[in-house]
């Protein structure tokens, strides 16, 4: 996937909206300040002399003082922009290499030193000298980076301080000349000298703020792009007909599919009708297209070619959320959250306790939950003080209970017993009828034995349905299903 590590990502993104707003507000203050001081400086420059020596009168003349002011500003501007440009480039180069060092240091600290699992290997293979050597070299690089940073900041401050002092000297000189030449009063000295100092300080402030605004704005660019991402899943407007009899019929019409950005067709010309209220199984080797078939059924993706219908209507025409409401799914990679068990089961709804217990019982995990001190209120995992850890099998059963709680007309179980021991798996099969009741169920499994209780089995091979029928019919046909069955059966013989 080419994903960056969390550290790299967080290092790249250092600001947020409120920081940017604050910087802009500070810049607005500085610009307002500069504008006001410029008006005052222009007034100062425009004040004509009425006394003093020839030289004083010359420098105090309106065009001369204006020219002097502009020349000083331009001169300082040129010095600042050229030196600051070089300094900024240097800063950028310095920063670019740094995350790699930090990332490696974090890796050693988090994944090597602080990890229980690595402790055994480190001790058994006497890795201490190697780790210390690596850490030393990383520390050295880190130290160098910070020394360079301090050096850089020092030079930047010297430059700013130097140009600022130059400007102050010029400011006091100009205002003094104006006072001595009688162009302004003694009291006005304070006003104009102050205005000139404000001008210098605020220009410097703008120069300091611009790189900061630039940094955050460019970081925010990624967020802006993200916010503008279109929702690829078009949603129709037709509501799903609410049927108590659960008579929903789904059909694939010549459906082919390739994942976005790839050319390989994962599903090829799949046409099939899902038997109403039937117990179906989807089997096949790894990569045969079983899970993709389910993803298309649940509209996590849309077909590349062909279409799927629900009661004769293209599923894209239905309201997306309503369409999703007809599926109760347990994927291989189900997720439970660190919330109370009741909320994990009733997701999105107020927890109806009796119904939740009923579903947990059907899934075969009621007794375990009942033994917990807070029952349904028990939080999962140790993110909370009184949270509990469930075993893989128990967690999978809670995920099954969640799918049952939804009471959807279609129940899809994608490798639901993968984490279960043989006894728990057997219990699930035994209860399967009770679990799915009058719903249409689709069962995906690698374990051929677990599909025997289904009355309709679809065999996927290289993205196509190559066989379909009951267990007995498929065995008799002696095709792919029989091969898969026999291949697994030989280990138990």
């Amino acid at each position, binding site marked *: 996937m080419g994903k960056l590590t969390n550290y790299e990502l967080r290092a790249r*993104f250092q600001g947020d909206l409120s920081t940017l707003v604050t910087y802009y507000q500070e810049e607005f203050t500085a610009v307002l300040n500069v504008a006001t001081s410029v008006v005052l400086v222009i007034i100062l420059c425009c004040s004509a002399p009425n006394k003093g020596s020839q030289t004083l009168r010359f420098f105090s003349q309106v065009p001369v003082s204006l020219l002097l002011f502009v020349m000083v500003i331009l001169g300082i501007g040129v010095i600042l922009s050229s030196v600051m440009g070089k300094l900024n480039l240097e800063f950028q180069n310095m920063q670019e290499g740094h995350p790699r060092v930090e990332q490696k240091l974090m890796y050693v600290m988090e994944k090597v030193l602080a990890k229980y699992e690595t402790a055994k290997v480190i001790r058994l293979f006497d890795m201490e000298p190697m780790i210390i050597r690596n850490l030393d070299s990383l520390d050295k690089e880190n130290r160098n980076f910070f020394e360079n940073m301090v050096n850089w900041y020092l030079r930047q401050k010297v430059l700013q301080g130097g140009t600022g002092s130059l400007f102050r000297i010029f400011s006091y000189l100009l205002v003094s000349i104006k006072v001595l030449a009688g162009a302004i009063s003694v009291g006005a000295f304070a006003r104009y000298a102050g205005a000139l100092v404000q001008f210098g300080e605020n220009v410097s402030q703008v120069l300091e703020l611009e790189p900061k*605004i*630039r940094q955050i*704005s460019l970081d*925010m660019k*990624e967020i802006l792009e993200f*916010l503008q*991402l279109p929702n690829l899943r078009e949603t129709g407007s037709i509501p799903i007909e609410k049927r108590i009899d659960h008579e929903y019929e789904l059909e694939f019409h010549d459906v082919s599919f390739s994942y976005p950005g790839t050319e390989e067709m994962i599903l090829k010309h799949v046409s099939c009708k899902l038997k109403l209220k039937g117990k179906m199984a989807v089997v096949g080797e790894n990569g045969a297209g079983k899970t993709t078939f389910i993803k298309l059924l649940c509209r996590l993706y849309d077909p590349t070619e062909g279409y799927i219908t629900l009661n004769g209507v293209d599923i894209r025409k239905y309201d997306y959320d309503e369409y999703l409401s007809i599926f109760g799914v347990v994927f291989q990679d189900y997720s439970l959250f660190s919330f109370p068990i009741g909320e994990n089961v009733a997701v999105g709804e107020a927890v109806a306790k009796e119904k939740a217990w009923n579903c947990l019982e059907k899934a075969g995990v009621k007794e375990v939950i009942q033994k917990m001190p807070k029952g349904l209120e028990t939080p999962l995992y140790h993110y909370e003080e009184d949270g509990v850890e469930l075993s893989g099998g128990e967690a999978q059963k809670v995920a099954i209970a969640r799918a049952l709680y939804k009471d959807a007309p279609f129940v899809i179980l994608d490798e639901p017993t993968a984490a279960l021991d043989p006894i728990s798996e057997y219990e699930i099969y035994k209860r399967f009828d009770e679990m799915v009741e009058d719903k249409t169920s689709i069962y995906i499994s690698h374990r051929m034995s677990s599909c025997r209780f289904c009355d309709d089995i679809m065999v996927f091979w290289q993205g196509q349905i190559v066989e379909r029928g009951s267990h007995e019919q498929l065995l008799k046909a002696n095709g792919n299903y029989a091969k898969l069955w026999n291949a697994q059966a030989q280990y138990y013989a």
Partner: protein
Amino acid sequence: MRKIKEKWKTSFSYHEYGIACLKIAWRLDRSVLPVGMLLSIAGVLQIYLGLFLSSEIIDTLLREQYQKGMVLAGILVGTNFLLGIGRARLAMAQKERNVKLSLSFKQMLREKVLKLDYESMEDAKKWENLQIMNCVPDSREICQR
């Protein structure tokens, strides 16, 4: 001239994103920007009013108009006091609004994540974007299999 214009434009093009962000801030909370602007205006007013009144006081004292000088000094102290209080209150209001803005923005991003279609979530580049924004913590932090 055209080259300089173009260079200038490219050098400051990042403000385009900055302004887009300010628009979002405006949408999320209409009071953040005005409060910030008022704070800026109050700050600048305080500085220049101080400079103006100080110079007037010096001139008045030099003209030996002590009574007028006292009045001006009173006005200087009074306006400084009032503007100081006003600025402090505005600064407090701005801080409070900034915190709220930050939270609403995060909320907005989280809502976008939850509304995003699954297909986009599986896209590596978009996933990277989500992580950058730190609005989706490492999946191991919030859920376990």
